[in-house]
């Protein structure tokens, strides 16, 4: 299958600092690819390279089979792009902006923009400058999807959206996938990527650390778990459980780190009277450390 996105040693140095270094990646049709990394890791740089807004120092990218630069407008017509910090014409109303952008993409009217705006409860008649951050983000989401592009390139798409609208956005991504379109989205939130991506690439300091299917990623996911018991429990019962580390018991409070499934720990805990369970998702940094150290101490 011809990949929709193909990166071959893609490298971008800025005048002073590193953008991205030697990225190799293939994203296939109909796939939702999560591009995960902390801020400043090179996610936006990668995305801007795909759209020919910046040019690589070395290596190359192929988008829909073409080099972004030589492919030019014809390639970009088939892409929906949502910028990380979308700048919109503040004096236009949402409708004016969508009509303006629609014309450029060969739509003769608002296209599916009206329907999309309804789904996001977006008022298209107000000037964009008067909208809240969340509503501006909705305009940016709608313009990315309005022309039913073959490839969606979304940079931190849910930032600023409230949870209800985030869910609507996830549905939109799922529909795009069902229609065979490809989604490349960046995020610094593991939970978000877990929720909608088929495969995940983790980028750190300009390098792709790992590319994995979601199942494999979940199997290595770290959680900090706190279990509050009604009375004291023996630490020994928990320390030897598979996939459970760093067990500390103080009176009735147990804290531990789990790798992958939390099933064993929860079942062991169930033998005692449990008052409360608190689960913290490991932050990205912990996850990266794990990949850097290798899978050696994972299980």
């Amino acid at each position, binding site marked *: 299958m011809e990949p929709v996105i193909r990166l071959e040693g893609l490298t971008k140095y800025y005048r002073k600092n590193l953008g991205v270094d030697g990225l190799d990646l293939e994203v296939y049709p109909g796939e939702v690819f999560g591009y995960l990394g902390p801020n400043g890791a090179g996610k936006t740089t990668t995305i801007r390279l795909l759209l020919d807004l910046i040019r690589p120092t070395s290596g190359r990218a192929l988008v829909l089979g073409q080099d972004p630069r030589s492919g030019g407008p014809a390639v970009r017509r088939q892409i929906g*792009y949502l910028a990380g910090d979308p700048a919109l014409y503040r004096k236009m109303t949402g409708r004016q902006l969508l009509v303006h952008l629609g*014309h450029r993409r060969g739509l003769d009217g608002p296209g599916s923009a009206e329907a999309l705006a309804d789904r996001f409860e977006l008022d298209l008649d107000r000037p964009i400058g008067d909208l809240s951050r969340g509503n501006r983000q909705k305009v940016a989401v709608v313009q990315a999807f309005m022309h039913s592009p073959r490839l969606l390139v979304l940079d931190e798409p849910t930032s600023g959206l409230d949870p209800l609208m985030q869910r609507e956005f996830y549905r939109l991504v799922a529909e795009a996938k069902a229609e065979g379109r490809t989604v490349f989205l960046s995020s610094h939130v593991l939970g978000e990527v877990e929720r909608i991506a088929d495969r995940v690439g983790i980028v750190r300091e300009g390098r792709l650390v790992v590319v994995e299917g979601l199942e494999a990623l979940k199997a290595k996911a770290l959680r900090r778990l706190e279990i509050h018991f009604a009375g004291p429990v023996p630490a020994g019962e928990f320390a030897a459980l598979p996939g459970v580390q760093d067990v500390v018991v103080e009176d009735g409070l147990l804290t531990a780190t789990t790798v992958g499934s939390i099933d064993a720990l929860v079942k062991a805990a169930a033998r005692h009277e449990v008052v409360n369970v608190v689960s913290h998702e490991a932050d990205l940094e912990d996850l990266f450390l794990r990949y850097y150290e290798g899978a050696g101490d994972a299980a």
Partner: protein
Amino acid sequence: MLRSVFGAAIWSRRRALAWWVGGSFVYLLFLGSAFPTFSDNAARFQEVFESYPEALRAMFNMVEGISLGTGPGFLHMELFSLVLPLLLMIFAVGFGARAVAGEEEEGTLDLMLAGPLSRRRWLGEQFAAMATLTSLIGLVNYLAILVAGAAFGMGLDPGYLAAATLGAVLIALVFGSLALGVGAATGRRGMAIAAASAAALAAYLVFSLADIVTWLGTFQKASPWYYYAAAAPLLNGIEWAHAGVLAAVVVALPVLGGMALERRDLAV
């Protein structure tokens, strides 16, 4: 209006445009109302002017045989020597600096160029919009001067006036194009405005002082202002060669800027 980059560039300036049009009319009628005072006292003004040192006369763009008492002479010195080209230039430079660099700094250029639009096309349509609106303001000024001329008996030749106004539009566009080109090459709006303003000031000074400062004389023809003012089209009609030089510069600068824009990274 929002069907093209050209249309949107004009649409977004519709309010500013209304002010330029209204302001031009008011200013020119006001200026015209001063003309009778000058023509009634022509002989005395002439004396005063002739007593000025040569340097000062050069700054007023005085040419041989000109009289403040005639309509064309009055307008040549009071309006076309500096004020009209300067006003048009302020508009054109502001437009040119915003067209690429300003939109880039705002982030809206990203939005547009991430879509199916080439950088060259963006620049081309912005240039066309800048030229169209600057010409439109020039046309409005032309009409306002004709009205003022008729109202205050200036005895203007519409053809000569058209030639002079065209020249003012072209010299304004030279620096508008410079701002557009510098903005396209650097992505920095402040730099585009600074470069265009400095170049305009230098061009004006070199032309004006070249008659007095000997060493500047050799550079006079390098100043775009020479091709605007030297032939005094309001008094003598159009000098096609000079208008052609200006037009060529107007077109060449955005082309050079576009070549740089094609190659560089857009700022975030």
